[in-house]
Structure formats: C-alpha cells, structure tokens
C-alpha cells in the first residue's frame, strides 16, 4: 500500500505527530512537507479545466498531483485553524482542482464535480490544536464535506489529537482493522 503524508514541519506538534505516524506505518510512504515546499495559492483561473485540462497553469504542483494519484491512502496532518486546515496545508488542497472535472454530478444529495480520474486515494485526516470544542465540531463536519467533494466513502477516518502525538499510532492501527 502506498501512502502520501502531507504535513507542515514548521509546526512543532506536526513534527512530533509525523514521527509517530512514520513509526507506525509499515508501507511505502511518500511525504510532502508544506513547510519546506510551500505552494502558492490557487488563483481560481480555471485554466486547469478550460486551457490545459488536468494541469495547473501555475508551477509547482505536477509532482504533487502525480504522487496524489499514485497513492492508495492520503494522510492529511494539520493544525485545526478556525475549524479547517492550516493555510499551508489548505493551499495544497486548493491546488487539487485539476484532479476534478468541470462537469457536475449529484453525490450524497448535493451537487459536486465529477472526478477526472478513476482512482483516488482514501482520505485519512488527522487534526490537532483546535482553539475550542466548537472548532473540533466544525472540523468533523468540514472534513466530511471535503470527503464528499472527493467522493470518499471512508466516513470515519477523521481523528483529532488531543493529548499526545503518541495516540496517533494506536488510532491508525485501529482504523486499519
């Protein structure tokens, strides 16, 4: 199984949790460190749909998109900011637009974009550092919406780290069973 891990080394808690995740995974792991390789924001030009379908007009995302599609599982490790992802991690998610097709489909009762590719990785989302209980609730709802966007059926695969980064390893093992 191939796993792509996206995390931000500029965040000390992300570094600790990343270490635990690496120890617990006995699989082919590719990492993207958003701190070392920040990606510019998506400018909403839709060039990836109407000029060069499937490719972003901005530089820097080709290797990332290729790794994304090659993975069986994507682990997103992020600080919870206002109930969502950190800006560095969100920039990577926003730049995924070339993986979607401009056409619409109905999924789980709402309009979404068709997926451009047949295979997408299963999404495992690990958040930490929420500013309040309410932000944790928003994070749960938000990650579900993100999954629906990618037509991902792994509804239980959001985890919030509260005490120690060590608990991420046991949760990952449990989630795989």
């Amino acid at each position, binding site marked *: 199984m191939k796993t792509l891990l996206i995390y931000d080394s500029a965040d000390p808690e992300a570094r600790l949790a990343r270490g635990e995740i690496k120890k617990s995974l006995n699989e082919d792991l590719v990492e993207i460190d958003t701190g070392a390789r920040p990606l*510019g*924001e*998506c*400018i*909403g*030009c*839709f060039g990836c*749909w*109407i*000029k060069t*379908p*499937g*490719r972003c007009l901005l530089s820097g995302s080709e290797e990332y*998109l*290729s790794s994304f*599609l090659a993975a069986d599982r994507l682990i997103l490790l992020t600080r919870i*900011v*206002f*109930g*969502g*992802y*950190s*800006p*560095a991690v*969100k*920039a990577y*998610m*926003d730049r*995924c637009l070339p993986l979607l*097709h*401009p*056409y*619409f489909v109905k999924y789980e009762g*709402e*309009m*979404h974009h068709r997926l*451009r*590719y*047949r*295979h997408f990785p299963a999404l495992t989302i690990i958040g930490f550092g929420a*500013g*309040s209980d*309410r*932000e944790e609730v*928003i994070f749960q*709802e*938000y990650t579900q*919406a*993100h999954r629906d*966007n990618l037509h991902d059926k792994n509804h239980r695969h959001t985890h919030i780290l509260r005490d120690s980064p060590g608990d991420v390893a046991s949760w990952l093992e449990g989630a795989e069973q």
Partner: protein
Amino acid sequence: MKITAVNGSPRGADSNSGEVIRLLRDALPQDVAWQEVQARGKERPTPEGLTSGILLITFPLYVDGLPSGLIRWLQEYRDLCHASPVDQKVYAVANCGFHEGEQNRSALAMVEAFAVSAGLSWCGGVGIGTGEMIRGLKSVPPEAGIRRPVITALKTLGEAMTGQTALKENLYTRHNLPWMVYKIAGEAGWRSRGRKNGVRTKDLSARPFGA
C-alpha cells in the same frame, strides 16, 4: 458608520466576491464609509481595519472551506485584535459554484470561529449557491426573478448591518433556476470556454497523469 470590506477572492476586485461588495454598497445608506481590502497572496491586514465598527468578509468557497490566503489573513487579523482589542461586528458572504447555498455552511462556521477567537461579535452570514452567476447577471435588473432570491438575502444582510444587529441565523440562497437547468447550462459554459481556448470537448476530460 464605517465598514471594512474584506474581499477574500484570489481573483481580486473583478470577482463574484467583489460584486457582492458592490451590491451591498448599493443597498446601504450613502453616508456609510467603506474601506475595501484584499485578502489574497501577500496582502496583509493593517491596524486601520480595526477602526471600523463592522468587518464584512466576502469570499468564494474553496474545497468546502476558506481560500488558503484568506485563512492566513484572518490569522494575522486575529493577532492584531489580540494586541488591540476592539468592539467589531463580523458579517460574511460566501459563494460557491454548486447549486446549493447550504454547501457554504462549514465555511461560514469557520468565519464565526475566527470572530470568536479574535474576540469580535459574530452577526451571521449569507451562503450563495450558483455563485458564478453573481457577476454574470450584473447587467440584469436586480428585481428580475432569476436574481431575486440572492438580492433579497443580501438586502436582509444589509439591513442587519445598517441596524448593527445580528441575523437570526445564516441565510442560504441561490439564483432562481432548477438544478438540472443549472447543470446543463453550466456544462455548456465550460465547453464554450474550452473551445475559446482551443480545447475540444473531449479534451476537457484529459487525464495527463494516467488513468
């Protein structure tokens, strides 16, 4: 009354979020003072924003949440508020390209979470579906049936801002056309825009990174 209007669209002033600000400027009394700022790329908040009684945040939905540049901007604005606490009311308008305005619900909740963490007063927001039509219909009279639900929701928001009161709850709306008509028209629009760029319809489905 002074309003700081934050445009969170990476497309800048020439965007649906920019058009929302223009519509609200038209709906509010002429004596309101407006300060418009962009929250994208390398733009950073300044303490001047804290001098307004109202902070209005408009933005497009990006992957079900806030665009990354806006998240960074809000983090820095929160830090300014912690350094110099202010009594400011926060309103927001999110728009998305999907049919359902309700798909903006998590993004509006995030703006609320920002307001709470910055010590500001959350007063509610509007989530607009079919958002790509906001700019596209700007030459159509506001009272036209297709625009009416969106214009009415923005008027309700404008009244709350004028009275400096909170909405009872977030409002979700969209332009007045059925789901299937929006889907068919939207997809025809993508094909047309592709052709203008020399992209054939079948190539809209290209898979440059494999199957």
